[in-house]
């Protein structure tokens, strides 16, 4: 099953690509018009951060230093026939000017030791041999500070802050911590968050970071979560727990939410046609596969439909009007639906979205959670604990919004065991 790795193939493609990429790029017509009568500062980096994409205030961390120093690097374009002869850099808004600025072709470099907590403001001028200076507006007016903290500890703290904002249902506060270039539809996520706070009225959430890794301005953080919430639908308390990952991106001095993977903990009530997660295919699922591939004796399989007015009972393989005690699952196309509902007239009645996976992938249910409703997503598979304490797994094969119908295939274990294979 494993993909065969051909190192030679990789090497050849790499070398060919490298060779193909050799042509020199020059600033082209697509650069917005600046006169060529004076030198121009084109790009400025501080600690590896590109100032043109930076917020008005941002923070730099231990990882931004090189050998304990902060490096300011700027690229400029001289005016025609007049090379740059002098460069000046100030990190205190022009009050004092640094002496150790190195000029090298079309770039300048300054290296200095930053002080923690101090606010810096960059000013920069380049002067050519004709005595002409660049436009002061070339360098963005931004302030930056340095923290001896590692980006990793800041990312952990910002994850806890996200969870806290979610728990106190602070929609605007949470939205302010979504990165500008969020992977996925940002407005979908905002609507899904509003939907979460409509569905769950009181939220208690605890997150425990497990693995935080940094690459450039991004952090990948894996953590364990525990959540309980009071459902606005019936006033019952729902619990969910598990592990998931977020991608965070450094912006404006903190790490902001840039991407999520299944299982979703923020925006979990997103509609079926939306996908605020934008993740890859999960390696591990909340449902472990522990036995052989063949179905255990007694496991029932089949296909079925549910509609707004007709739920399904796995034990009798029949449809009936949706009500506790009559059906195990139903669907609600109202509100921001469709939602799958697990009906509870007894002690149980839970449903867990396992994400995009095939029904045949599930051998046993190891974690069911305590949710009684879940967004319906075409192709996704769901674990169900019926109100009589029996397990079922269902995969949606079609959602017909016009006819308010969901079609699915399922397997049902009447013995009460969570194992199917």
């Amino acid at each position, binding site marked *: 099953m494993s*993909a065969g790795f051909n190192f030679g193939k990789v090497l050849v493609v790499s070398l060919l690509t490298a060779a193909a990429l050799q042509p020199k790029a*020059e600033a082209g017509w697509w650069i917005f018009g600046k006169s060529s009568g004076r030198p121009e500062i*084109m790009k400025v980096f501080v600690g590896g951060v590109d100032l*043109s994409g930076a917020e008005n205030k941002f923070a730099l961390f231990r990882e931004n230093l090189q050998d304990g120093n902060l490096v300011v690097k700027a690229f400029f374009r001289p005016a025609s026939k007049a090379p740059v002869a002098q460069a000046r850099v100030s990190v205190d808004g022009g009050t004092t000017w640094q002496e150790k600025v190195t000029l090298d072709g079309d770039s300048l470099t300054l290296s200095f030791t930053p002080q923690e907590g101090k606010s810096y403001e960059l000013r920069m001028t380049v002067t050519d041999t004709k005595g002409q200076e660049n436009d002061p507006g070339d360098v963005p007016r931004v302030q930056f500070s340095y923290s001896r903290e590692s980006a990793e500890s800041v990312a952990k703290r910002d994850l806890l802050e996200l969870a806290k904002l979610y728990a106190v249902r602070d929609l605007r506060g949470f939205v302010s911590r979504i990165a500008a270039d969020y992977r996925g539809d940002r407005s979908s996520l905002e609507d899904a968050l509003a939907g979460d706070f409509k569905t769950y009225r009181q939220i208690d959430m605890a997150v425990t970071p497990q693995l935080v890794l940094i690459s450039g301005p991004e952090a990948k953080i894996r953590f364990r979560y525990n959540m309980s919430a009071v459902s606005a639908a019936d006033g019952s308390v729902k619990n969910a*727990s598990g592990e998931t990952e977020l991608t965070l991106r450094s912006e404006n001095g903190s790490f902001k939410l840039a991407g999520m993977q299944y299982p979703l903990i923020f925006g979990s009530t997103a509609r079926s046609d939306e996908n605020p997660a934008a993740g*890859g295919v999960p*390696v591990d699922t909340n449902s472990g596969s522990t036995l052989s591939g063949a179905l255990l004796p007694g496991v029932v399989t089949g296909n079925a439909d549910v509609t707004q007015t007709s739920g399904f009972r796995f034990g009798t393989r029949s449809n009936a009007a949706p009500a506790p005690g009559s059906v195990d699952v139903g669907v609600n196309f109202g509100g921001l639906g469709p939602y799958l509902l697990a009906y509870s007239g007894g002690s149980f009645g839970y449903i867990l979205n396992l994400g995009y996976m095939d029904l045949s992938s599930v051998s046993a249910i190891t974690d069911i959670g305590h949710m009684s409703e879940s967004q319906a997503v075409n192709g996704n598979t769901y674990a169900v604990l019926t109100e009589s304490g029996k397990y079922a797994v269902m995969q949606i094969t079609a959602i017909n919004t016009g006819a308010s119908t969901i079609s699915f295939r399922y397997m049902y274990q009447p013995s009460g065991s969570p194992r199917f294979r």
Partner: protein
Amino acid sequence: MTKEILCAFYVSTLACAQLHAGAKNAPGSLSGQGAALSGRNRFSVYDNNVSGAGADSSFLTRGLQYQNDLSLTLDSAGNTNARWALALDARFTDDRRMDSKEASLQRISYDRWSRGGQISVGDFYGNFTQYSLNQNIKGLRWTGQKIADVEVTVIGGMAKNRWDELWERGEFESLNRGVEAARVRWTGPMASEIGAQLVFTGDRRTAGSAADAYSQRLFGFSWALPSNSDLSISGESAWSGAGIDRQAAEDSSKWGGAHKISARAKLGRWRSAAEYENVTTDFITTIGAASSDLRRWLARNQIRVAAGIDALINASGYRNNLNGRGQDTVRTFSPEGGLRWSAAFNRPTLNLEAKIRQRRSIHSGGTAEQRNLSGVLSLSDQWGPLNGSLDYEHRNEARVGQQRNFRDLLGFGLSGFYRVQEITLRPFVKWDLDNDHNETASTDNAAAQAYFGLAAENIAPRLSASVSRRRSFMRQAGGDDVINKLWDLRCNYRVPWREGDSLEAGFKDNLNDFSTGSKNYRETVWEVVYVSRL
């Protein structure tokens, strides 16, 4: 229990202390080789009590538990030609809510930088591009030194979440995913770049697993044009072929592509950002990130109309079911407009913002059109050490021919920063209201919350403390009313016997009071934490 606590605590902290002492003092020790050890150990013991008829609703693990998190970093601190760092994180806990294992290695990594490039062994964040590779990897990464502005990176390893899954069967583990990837990246003047990525992944099922196994070949191409502060344009394309081996169903293979382009521009008073993305139905990325079967675009514009006043004009849209294989196609269009007034009425700290956003979704079925219209008003100001904010949002959520909801969200917050001699005080108060009126059923669901607290630093030498109180009320039509009362107290003492160490204590009392008494439950948590630093 006691043995476990002592074991976790002493092994980790003494190891830290000994290594630290060795690094500082011993001749010929780590310090002699220019190595520096830093680290942190956080040992926590806590007691969770849950009472009441509805105690099963709590997710807390009952009783006395402990958790110990140890982080160590050993790195070369000298002026050598090669820098290196060795990092290790470990967790010990008997609380399954915190970790599935009692003792687990969370991270181990070794990085070495030299003139030849950088090599990483163990945990690292493989981050080529969004579509190709964007995942934590356990394995090996080599990035060569730039030659003629070209940099080559090669990665081999596994996309594993936990180390213990490498030598024993994990709780949720169903696959081993091998990763082999290479990237060639050329960087040019003015932040221009071209990159080519090649990523192979292959899944191998764990013993007895029936999970879908993917075998993926992905080629990606990323680029950025030469840019300055006025204009930048970048993009990425990726093509993926994935074979899916299904244990109890027919195998399948999928080929698809994903493309995106984004631009940011500034011209005079106008600032704009735009993005377009198209991900085909059959594009699968196993270790990247993409939403399949979606075409979407967005444009954000900000125009300075007068001193301190910006007009905001944004719009986004998407459609799914690109190849028509799905049952429904959904087209969504979401325009947004508003004004932001900074330093309003000549008051430097006063900021006002008003926005209106519509969201319209049309399903191919035709009967499920949804329209959401929301208006937001925000105000923030500062009076000396006191910051205040007021937000109001009205939402009209309608599904054509079915139901309509009117939702009002109101939030008010105050926070301050005061210094009284050596004491720093940070009080805050927050109040919000969320009322959801269902016009069709003529019912209301309402939630109100008051949240206030005070953090005080240096209230005595080395001592800081905080207290917060949250009280919320929820009423829903035909259901229980719920009142939640939360007290949270914490104090932190920087111990005099070891600089950098601190002792923390916390108490939390969380009461959920339902109108149906059998649902009531109360959580009381006591916690003591000792944090030691190296």
